[in-house]
């Protein structure tokens, strides 16, 4: 195995394109675990941690947030730069695994891995995030809702890496709610829900709903969001929106839960999250 520590993105991309069976390694929390389990055996590892252009969280004029790919979950969790709607990503990061994992695992690695039971995908969809994909051909931005394509499959093209995640500024008054059901603290989600909502008085002006671990990609529903935007949110409206999300879900049976359990749990959690986001936004 060959190990490389490039200090520029260009050098990293050249290595990934030209070296034998090369894989990028960011924090390594997932890749080394997969190597330990015999699931992958790269011939070349390209460490990204020494590339300044991939690091750090930057707030742009206008309120957009650019989170570099090698930013650790711990750095996301403890950042003060997220606005109240963008905070959905920070809330999700705080639930990933355990403190030593969060100190090492990175948003770029996690997003590129696209584990449907992980915490970022649903949160990024609810935040209307864009994933910046970078290859030798250049840079392109893919909306989160289009980035996660299938189980462990993303829109990254061969030779591309995740460069950053970009969060637009959230609407005024937005409130973010992330709720995760897991067997024990630190486990992957059995079900997770992510809600970003903004109220204007009694009327909802903005709603983004996403559910994790309920299908190969984050579950979304235009119908559910349309039921909320422009409406006064009461119990019945929240019920209908949650039910629409339940219809859109495509969960599997696995060791963490049956499909039926996941769907029922998600609908309940989604309703609670909608009402909590309503209350949080009205303050």
């Amino acid at each position, binding site marked *: *195995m*060959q*190990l490389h*520590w490039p200090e520029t993105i260009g050098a990293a991309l050249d290595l990934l394109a030209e070296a034998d069976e090369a894989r990028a*390694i960011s924090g*390594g*929390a997932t890749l*080394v*675990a997969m*190597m*330990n*389990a015999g699931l992958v*055996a790269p011939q070349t*590892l390209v*460490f990204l*941690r020494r590339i300044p252009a991939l690091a750090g969280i930057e707030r742009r004029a206008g309120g957009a947030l650019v989170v570099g790919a090698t930013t650790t979950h711990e750095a996301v969790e403890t950042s003060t730069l997220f606005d109240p709607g963008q905070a959905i990503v920070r809330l999700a990061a705080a639930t990933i*695994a*355990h*403190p*030593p*994992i969060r*100190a*090492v695992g990175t948003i770029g690695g996690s997003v590129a891995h696209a584990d449907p039971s992980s915490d970022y995908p649903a949160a990024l969809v609810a935040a209307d995030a864009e994933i910046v994909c970078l290859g030798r051909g250049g840079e392109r931005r893919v909306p989160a809702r289009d980035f996660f394509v299938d189980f462990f499959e993303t829109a990254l093209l061969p030779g591309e890496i995740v460069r950053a995640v970009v969060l637009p500024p959230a609407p005024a008054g937005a409130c973010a709610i992330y709720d995760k059901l897991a067997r024990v*603290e*630190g486990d992957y989600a059995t079900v997770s829900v992510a809600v970003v909502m903004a109220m204007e008085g009694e009327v909802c002006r903005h709603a983004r709903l996403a559910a994790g671990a309920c299908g190969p990609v984050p579950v979304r529903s235009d119908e559910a969001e349309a039921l909320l935007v422009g409406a006064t949110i009461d119990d019945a409206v929240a019920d209908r929106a949650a039910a629409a999300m339940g219809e859109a879900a495509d969960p599997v049976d696995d060791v963490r839960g049956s499909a039926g359990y996941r769907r029922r749990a998600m609908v309940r959690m989604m309703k609670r999250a909608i009402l909590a986001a309503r209350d949080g936004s009205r303050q």
Partner: protein
Amino acid sequence: MTDSSITYRLRVNGETEDVTAPAGETLIGVLRERLQLTGAKLGCAQGVCGTCTVLLDGRPTRGCLTLAADCTDREITTIEGLGVDGGLSAVQSAFVAAGAIQCGFCTAGMILTITALLKRNPRPSEAEVRHGISGNLCRCSGYTKIVEAALLAAGSAA
């Protein structure tokens, strides 16, 4: 297919160690197999159990998820490096005093994690201790005496 060996230097417990190992060897592998520092244990190899926890630049880190060759620019602390003048550190002594050791498999990882926690937060609440050790599994003790030991070491015994 064998992984070819490379040679590099690691800083472990204040000493510089020359290591020759396969490029892909993990830190836990190098510590245990090459440097005979067997205090850290290999449990799950997936980063879940915490028995491989060592300190990297003072931060609790999974030895099983870290490639040793990636640590050449960092300070590694293992349980063997905690003693002061041949004696036990405050956290080690507290573990003995509180009876917090049963089979010992989780102990090194627990003590290092708590040592780092107390450096960051010298007077943690019980909840903060429990959160701090949430990444370290113990199958023997039910955690009670481990938490007591942490609070004892912090000087605010439960």
